[in-house]
């Protein structure tokens, strides 16, 4: 049998319409497309008949015929009739092979909103793959699906896969992908797309197709590809996983052709397509010379300060940071991108500790400039605000940051430029063992007493800070709406006997959790969204709670009001898939950051801000009417209670909610709170 060309005609120019009964196991391109090309060929046949009349004078001598001939009965049927059966059961579908590839990487869940552009893969996952590894989780927004993957990874260190509709779905997903990018979190995003303009279904599927869907997320994904064969898919999928999981971690995207999913598996160079073995790439380690130079600066410093943001990628990172800090008796400022350093350790210091430093080492900082400089939004300099250094001019700066290896141009997540004395483009956690060793080797004996004294002084400072923090937390303890310190500490009291994990804390509760909760384990604090795209908290909490469910941990989230309303459908996803999560709302009834921005701008311009009957400036309040978040949650299958305005009622409500969560269900408390 002759190999058909892509135009739908066989190489011997016989009409393709005769070929749509080919065995599609051996002629895969003709399954759906063979029929469609047959439709086209019938039209072409009619046209060629007219052309041959002009070329043949003998025929031209016969009585004149109309210039456009009516279609034959067969042609008319092909153009207007119902398509024939597309050939079910004609070999292993390509999407089944794709499931085998996905399964090879042990991906446990697939949160996704269903869409026709990946219907073939969807069907293969739930039927051929048995809906396990990955298990399809029904989501109501692509942003929720990606953010679930974001939270899941930070809770257990394994990436999830999500499927998006090619254009509109990926557009929905894009903010969450940007958050994952900024937070250095791997998520594998597959977007369905119908590439072949000649054959794809018209109408909606064509509205939802694009030349290059990955283009819209390329600026904030580590890598992307558009496989054109199944072999290409298997290589690209494993490559994507590998790239996503090499520090600095990050999201990756694969555009998946709908026809490739539909077509049967065919031989590649005479063999079945193979699935490449995944072998993790070693993370990048700091140059040995730079490590020694950094160690020398640190041991000779009078007041070395360690600043960590996303330094501890895994629990081991916390232990390494403790080792380095204790060796130097150096203060540690934990910026909280991850749980880097135990909150109960006496070397923990507030951000202000940077002022006394003569050497600062920054570990995976998202913003070194803002670590050592202050910006004040005070309307000076034509509204640009003022900048001031927060450190002494002679302070030496060291940086270990893997993100230096993966900087792109368009989105400005690389922040303002900061001159650094020793800069290592390397993974901090991977470099810490050699740095610790270099520090140990470089420590002179005559420095050891001074270093020990530094530690003793810090013990006292830590105690003083602790008292100041608790004194501040007591202010407004009994007021209504409930103070954020009271909210946070009542919540802690309710969960402290569990293996708790604070999976998100959105909406800014004056950082009370990291200031007051005795966080010591890596999983007890997961950091924030990364890109500050609002709407992360609710879905990331559900994703992290999913991971914690399987690990036997208790998940609790401080959930802000504005964040929840971006895509509240994730509440239903949590109930549907029985994901236990305690969500305690910080309901301050406004987009509070913007409340303060608008007040500030009005004052700068010497105008009375327009409240129009609300508490906050027009456009910033979420009141009149107040949203009944507890009713919203109940309607989606959650146990919920509220609104709780009296602090005396909080403890008993939390007790009930904890019992519900321990029984395997999600629970929400709608608590009216102070603004910050």
């Amino acid at each position, binding site marked *: 049998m002759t190999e058909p060309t892509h135009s739908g005609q066989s190489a011997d120019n016989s009409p393709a319409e005769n070929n749509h009964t080919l065995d599609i196991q051996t002629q895969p391109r003709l399954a759906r497309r063979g029929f469609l090309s047959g439709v086209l060929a019938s039209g072409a046949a009619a046209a060629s008949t007219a052309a041959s009349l002009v070329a043949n004078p003998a025929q031209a001598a016969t009585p004149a015929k109309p210039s456009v001939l009516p279609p034959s009965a067969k042609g008319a049927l092909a153009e207007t009739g119902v398509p024939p059966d597309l050939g079910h059961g004609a070999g292993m579908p390509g999407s089944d092979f794709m499931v085998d590839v996905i399964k090879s990487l042990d991906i446990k869940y697939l949160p996704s909103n269903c869409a026709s552009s990946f219907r073939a893969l969807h069907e293969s996952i739930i039927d051929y793959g048995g809906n396990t590894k990955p298990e399809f989780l029904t989501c109501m927004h692509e942003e929720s699906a990606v953010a679930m993957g974001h939270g899941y990874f930070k809770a257990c260190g394994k990436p999830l896969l999500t499927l998006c509709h090619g254009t509109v779905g990926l557009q929905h997903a894009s903010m969450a992908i940007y958050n994952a990018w900024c937070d250095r979190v791997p998520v594998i995003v597959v977007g369905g797309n119908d590439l072949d303009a000649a054959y794809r279904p018209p109408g909606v599927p064509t509205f939802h197709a694009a030349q290059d869907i990955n283009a819209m997320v390329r600026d904030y994904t580590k890598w992307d590809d558009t496989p054109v064969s199944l072999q290409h898919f298997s290589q690209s999928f494993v490559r994507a996983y590998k790239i996503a999981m090499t520090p600095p971690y990050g999201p990756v995207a694969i555009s998946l052709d709908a026809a490739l999913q539909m077509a049967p598996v065919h031989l590649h160079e005479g063999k079945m397509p193979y699935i490449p073995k995944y072998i993790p790439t070693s993370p990048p380690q700091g140059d040995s010379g730079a490590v020694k130079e950094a160690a020398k600066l640190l041991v000779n410093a009078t007041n070395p300060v360690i600043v960590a943001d996303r330094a501890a990628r895994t629990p081991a990172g916390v232990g390494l940071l403790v080792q380095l800090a204790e060796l130097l008796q150096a203060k540690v400022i934990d910026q909280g991108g991850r749980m880097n350093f135990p909150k109960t350790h006496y070397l923990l210091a507030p951000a202000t500790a940077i002022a006394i430093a003569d050497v600062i080492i920054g570990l995976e900082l998202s913003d070194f400039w803002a670590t050592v400089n202050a910006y004040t939004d005070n309307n000076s300099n034509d509204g640009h605000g003022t900048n001031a250094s927060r450190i002494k001019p002679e302070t030496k700066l060291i940086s270990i940051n893997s993100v230096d290896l993966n900087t792109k141009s368009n989105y400005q997540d690389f922040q303002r430029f900061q001159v650094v004395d020793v800069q290592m483009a390397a993974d901090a956690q991977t470099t810490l063992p050699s740095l610790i060793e270099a520090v140990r080797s470089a420590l002179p004996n005559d420095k050891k007493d001074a270093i020990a004294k530094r530690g003793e002084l810090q013990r006292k400072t830590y105690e003083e800070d602790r008292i100041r923090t608790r004194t501040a937390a007591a202010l407004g303890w009994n007021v209504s709406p409930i103070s954020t310190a009271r909210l946070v500490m009542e919540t802690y009291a309710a969960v402290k006997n569990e293996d708790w994990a604070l999976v998100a804390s959105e909406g800014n509760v004056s950082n009370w959790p990291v200031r007051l909760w005795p966080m010591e384990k890596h999983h007890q604090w997961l950091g924030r969204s990364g890109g500050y795209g609002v709407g992360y908290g609710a879905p990331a909490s559900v994703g992290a709670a999913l991971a914690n469910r399987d690990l036997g941990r208790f998940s609790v989230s401080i959930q802000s009001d504005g964040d929840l309303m971006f895509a509240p459908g994730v509440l239903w996803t949590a109930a549907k898939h029985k994901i236990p999560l305690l969500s305690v709302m910080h309901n301050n009834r406004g987009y509070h950051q913007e409340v303060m921005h608008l007040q500030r701008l009005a004052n700068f311009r010497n105008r009375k801000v327009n409240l129009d009957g609300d508490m906050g*400036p027009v456009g910033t309040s979420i009141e009149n009417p107040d949203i009944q978040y507890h009713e919203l949650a109940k309607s989606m299958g959650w146990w919920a209670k509220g609104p709780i305005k009296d602090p005396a009622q909080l403890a008993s409500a939390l007790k009930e909610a904890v019992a519900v969560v321990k029984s395997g269900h999600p629970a929400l408390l709608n608590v009216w709170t102070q*603004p910050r």
Partner: protein
Amino acid sequence: MRNNTMISKFNAVFLLALLGCLSSQVIAQTPAPSADQGKQAYVINGCWGCHGFVGQGGIAGPKLAPDPKPIEYIDAFVRNTRGTMPPYSEKILSKKDLADIYTYLKSIPKGPDYKSIPLLN
């Protein structure tokens, strides 16, 4: 010269007496600052946004109550700040509103000491 000095002294005494008189009249004509009205002004003018509804403070703004700083300090700061807090001119926040707010802040009772709160120990 001496006479001039005497006149100057007389004038000064006279002026002070006059100012005292005027100031008493102003005080007599100005309603006493009200904590209730101060609470309203505190909310309408957005003080709560950074300092909380009872002046407890937080990450966005320092504590204002209980025991607020002297009115002179508050007045100077509110009118002239060039820091993170925006200045409030008299057009935005009248003298009376500021006086009321101060009275409200002074009326806020002390809360419990952290040592007496089990959750903070």
